[in-house]
């Protein structure tokens, strides 16, 4: 049984690619055969975040056009068993992705035994984004606690409920909210939208909260998904997200300000 999951946000720079990389890596670490597909034609980056940029030979569009076999285009991660990447094309041809071809590749991936197919959507609500969500069974909507991001997330939810293959046959797409770059300190001061504010506005269940952290930049610098170094708060947060996504109960963390002990108050 395969599940197609789209990671979408509308707004750029909120953490779609980081989230795709970490969730794909986390699912693979838990033993599920997982592929992450970069749908951002012309601006591929998932390969870079996952540290396999130098191994890209063929891409998604090559496979759709029949110029390469799916098996040769897929990049197998060297560190995590069960993790594969299908990079986006750097072509500027915007019509390179079309439903028929994308659907065919997804079916072939399902036939190869992939349990999770993570579709990293480009920003915006144009063709690339629509293709990434069209075949999805579930959606992870990434947002920052910030006005433009929340507004765009709501637009994306609108598209998910209208312009997908499930919507066309009257079915719904299960959508989860992932709130990233969250700062409990700012929320406490009343300077940032809180989790409950955003939940109230968007009306979808919370998958998790990822705290604002240096670890995200550090891990993309290295090309190693943050989830692989489980000492950081970001890794812990993404691990929780993966567990919840797999149906396990995990208490929400990183929502409240960390209590500092007397020593950390003095020397932290």
């Amino acid at each position: 049984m395969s599940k197609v999951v789209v990671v979408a946000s509308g707004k750029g720079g909120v953490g779609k690619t980081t989230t795709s990389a970490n969730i794909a890596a986390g699912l693979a670490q838990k033993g599920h055969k997982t592929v992450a597909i970069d749908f951002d034609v012309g601006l591929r980056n998932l390969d870079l975040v996952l540290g396999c940029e130098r191994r890209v030979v063929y891409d998604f569009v090559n496979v759709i056009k029949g110029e390469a076999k799916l098996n040769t285009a897929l990049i197998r991660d060297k560190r995590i068993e069960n993790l594969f990447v299908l990079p986006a094309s750097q072509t500027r041809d915007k019509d390179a992705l079309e439903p028929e071809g994308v659907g065919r590749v997804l079916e072939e991936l399902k036939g190869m035994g992939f349990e999770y197919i993570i579709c990293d959507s480009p920003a915006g609500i144009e063709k690339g984004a629509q293709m990434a969500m069209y075949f999805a069974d579930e959606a992870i909507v990434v947002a920052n606690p910030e006005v433009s991001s929340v507004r765009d997330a709501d637009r994306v939810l609108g598209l998910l409920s209208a312009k997908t293959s499930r919507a066309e046959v009257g079915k719904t797409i299960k959508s989860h909210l992932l709130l990233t770059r969250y700062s409990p300190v700012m929320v406490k001061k009343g300077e940032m939208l809180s989790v409950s504010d955003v939940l109230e506005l968007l009306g979808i269940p919370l998958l998790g909260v990822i705290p604002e952290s240096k670890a995200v930049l550090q891990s993309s610098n290295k090309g190693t998904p943050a989830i692989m170094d489980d000492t950081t708060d970001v890794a812990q947060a993404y691990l929780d997200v993966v567990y919840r996504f797999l149906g396990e109960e995990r208490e929400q963390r990183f929502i409240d300000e960390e209590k500092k002990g007397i020593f950390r108050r003095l020397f932290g």
Partner: protein
Amino acid sequence: MPFLSFFRTPPKSASLAKDRLSVIVSRERASTRGGPDYLPQLQQELLAVLARYEKIDLQHVSVSLDRTEGREVLELNIVLPDAANKNRPSA
């Protein structure tokens, strides 16, 4: 008075953000999400009719569609020119 304003706390920016968002999000939902495609046109035609009888400011008209458990409520909100303006003898 500077002395008093020192004690008054200004509204927190997060609550401003939430208020602004709840307005814009519900407005955009009405016009885009799931609602019938004819909503914007309906809004315009209703306005055209109303404009024949009342001088209405576009700013003071809102159309929204609320959906709660299988029931849809189409809400048309029009702020009529206030009585003072209306009763003013026309020149």
